[in-house]
């Protein structure tokens, strides 16, 4: 590569470079801070993310390019996910600045590691080469393990980190093994070549299955979801929200990138003519979707802890999104991307409520939520909105998102997809039960014992508003969101 090529390529990853510089700045700044002032690094993180967003927007005019000798592809599809990550990370930084759990520890490292996870995700969704992909996924994983165990004096948090690490290492090992087979078969690390290789040699499906284990772990699809409840419960609540939204979206984004050649009417990156006829993985995702949402919803019913319940609910939502992969066309991809944006607002919102509860009451048990409406009325109402949206009831953005997915299924017009839609509706009914149990506890039930009144700060309300407003407004006026999603598919 000559100097010019290198500079042109570096320009394409300018947003990521900004993020890296921010990480270094945070670590450097943190060296001069004491524990009480270390949360100031969070503000540096916010500034860095804002600058990154500006560079990302400016990049919008460049045509799709494969940079660094076909290692990464810089295009609108990747930018969609990068915007999603920036928004999520910025919100998580705000949550963390406001979280009592996080504030009791020194938080310089926290923000540096958080941004590194985001950096890994940005490379994850733009990687079109397994070498880059694996490096990115390890960057995300390593950072997530530390973040999950960040409350190091808390046993639950350390347990979460250890469990996450053990499951993650196994999943990543299996995936790496699969990648090594794909490399052996095709002689290249290119993802498109791997799909081509699999479609010509049926045996290579075993390798594909191995690789999918790694994806399924990140996306928390059953039966690779066993880490989710314990990790989500033990990790600091902002990190739980981060794992549930950003980490999951990154897993899905990378899987989409890998499987894009199999989408017959999507032309992003390399298209392989007629591959889907030879390599049909849709039945696999049909099964994964059914198992994942059923497991998530059925186990969620019995949960008594809000964080744990939301963990199972997030598994169920991964299942709903996977229904789109069972269809595998442009409309389905659009519906899935739409779902991610909706999921961002409503799920972050629900976890924000859990975090505020832990801040104020020190626990997230459902029993402690009883009679919340009389003590913290706005919190209870906001939670109700998020839960309605998670169930998929109008007029919230969750309804539109779910409707889109079901519409795509019905449009396929075969009993195979009708039955999938039917199972999805059945699951929604089950989820209605346990979501409404929370609302019931908050609004209709009386607290068992008299509890002292709790103070309410403007910051709580402001953060909640930032998430409540889009959840409702986008449920009524969703065409801007549709436009945002369709841009990603160009």
């Amino acid at each position: 590569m000559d100097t010019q090529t290198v500079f042109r390529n570096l320009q394409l990853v300018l947003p990521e470079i900004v993020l890296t510089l921010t990480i270094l700045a945070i670590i450097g700044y943190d060296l001069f801070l004491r524990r009480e002032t270390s949360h100031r690094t969070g503000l540096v993180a916010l500034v860095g993310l804002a600058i990154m967003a500006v560079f990302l927007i400016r990049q919008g005019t460049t045509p799709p390019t494969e940079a660094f000798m076909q290692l990464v592809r810089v295009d609108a599809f990747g930018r969609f996910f990068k915007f999603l990550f920036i928004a999520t990370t910025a919100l998580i930084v705000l949550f963390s600045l406001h979280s009592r759990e996080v504030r009791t520890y020194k938080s310089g490292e926290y923000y540096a590691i958080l941004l590194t996870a985001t950096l890994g995700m940005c490379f994850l969704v733009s990687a079109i080469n397994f070498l880059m992909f694996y490096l990115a996924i390890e960057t995300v994983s390593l950072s997530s393990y530390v973040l999950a165990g960040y409350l190091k004096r808390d046993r639950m948090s350390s347990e979460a980190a250890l469990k996450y690490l053990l499951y993650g290492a196994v999943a990543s090992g299996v995936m790496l093994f699969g990648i090594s087979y794909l490399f052996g078969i095709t002689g290249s690390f290119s993802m498109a070549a791997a799909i081509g290789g699999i479609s010509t040699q049926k045996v290579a499906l075993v390798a594909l299955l191995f690789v999918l284990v790694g994806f399924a772990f990140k996306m928390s699809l059953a039966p690779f979801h066993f880490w989710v409840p314990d990790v989500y419960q033990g990790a600091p609540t902002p990190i739980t929200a981060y794992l549930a939204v950003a980490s999951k979206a990154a897993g899905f984004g990378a899987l989409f990138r890998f499987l894009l050649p199999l989408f017959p009417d999507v032309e992003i990156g390399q298209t392989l003519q007629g591959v889907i006829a030879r390599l049909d993985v849709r039945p696999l995702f049909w099964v994964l979707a059914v198992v994942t949402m059923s497991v998530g919803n059925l186990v969620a019913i019995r949960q008594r802890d809000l964080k744990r319940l939301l963990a199972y609910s997030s598994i169920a939502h991964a299942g709903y999104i996977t229904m789109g992969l069972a269809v595998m066309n442009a409309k389905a991809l659009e519906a899935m991307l739409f779902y991610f944006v909706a999921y961002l607002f409503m799920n972050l919102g629900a976890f924000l409520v859990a975090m505020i509860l832990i801040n104020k009451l020190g626990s997230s048990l459902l029993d402690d939520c009883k009679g919340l409406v009389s003590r913290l009325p706005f919190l209870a109402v906001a939670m109700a909105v998020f839960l309605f949206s998670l169930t998929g009831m109008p007029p919230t953005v969750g309804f539109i998102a779910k409707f889109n997915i079901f519409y795509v299924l019905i449009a396929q017009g075969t009993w195979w997809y009708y039955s999938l839609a039917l199972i999805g509706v059945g699951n929604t009914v089950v989820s209605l039960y346990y979501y409404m149990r929370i609302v019931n506890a908050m609004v209709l039930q009386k607290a068992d014992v008299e509890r002292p009144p709790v103070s309410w700060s403007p910051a709580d309300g402001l953060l909640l508003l930032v998430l409540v407003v889009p959840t409702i407004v986008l449920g009524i006026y969703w065409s801007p969101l549709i436009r945002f999603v369709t841009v990603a598919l160009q």
Partner: protein
Amino acid sequence: MLQAYFPVFLLLLFGVGFAVFTMLLSHFIGKKKPTPVKLSPYECGIKPIGTARIQFFVKFYLIALLFLLFDMETIFILIWAVAFHDKSIQVFALIEMVVFITILLVGYAYVWRKGALKWR
């Protein structure tokens, strides 16, 4: 190609052979008159208490971990140094390594400043 490893093989053979040879030698020509004092781990020292298998201080682990990470960097620097002969990429190689090392120096400054290298 394999011939190139012959010196390595010789070194390995010599190292293992030397250790085995001296141990065997002392085993065969040494006199053995065991007494309880002679059989204790330290013949002229404090009497051992408990077993040698105690729980280690966690600090050792941190040092080993830091060692491993800087060990990884050595690998990167090794291949960089070997490839550096190529005139066409020398300038690039230098810049890339400077960036690489700078990023890791931040980590070094961190562990130093946070006292991870101090023994306390």
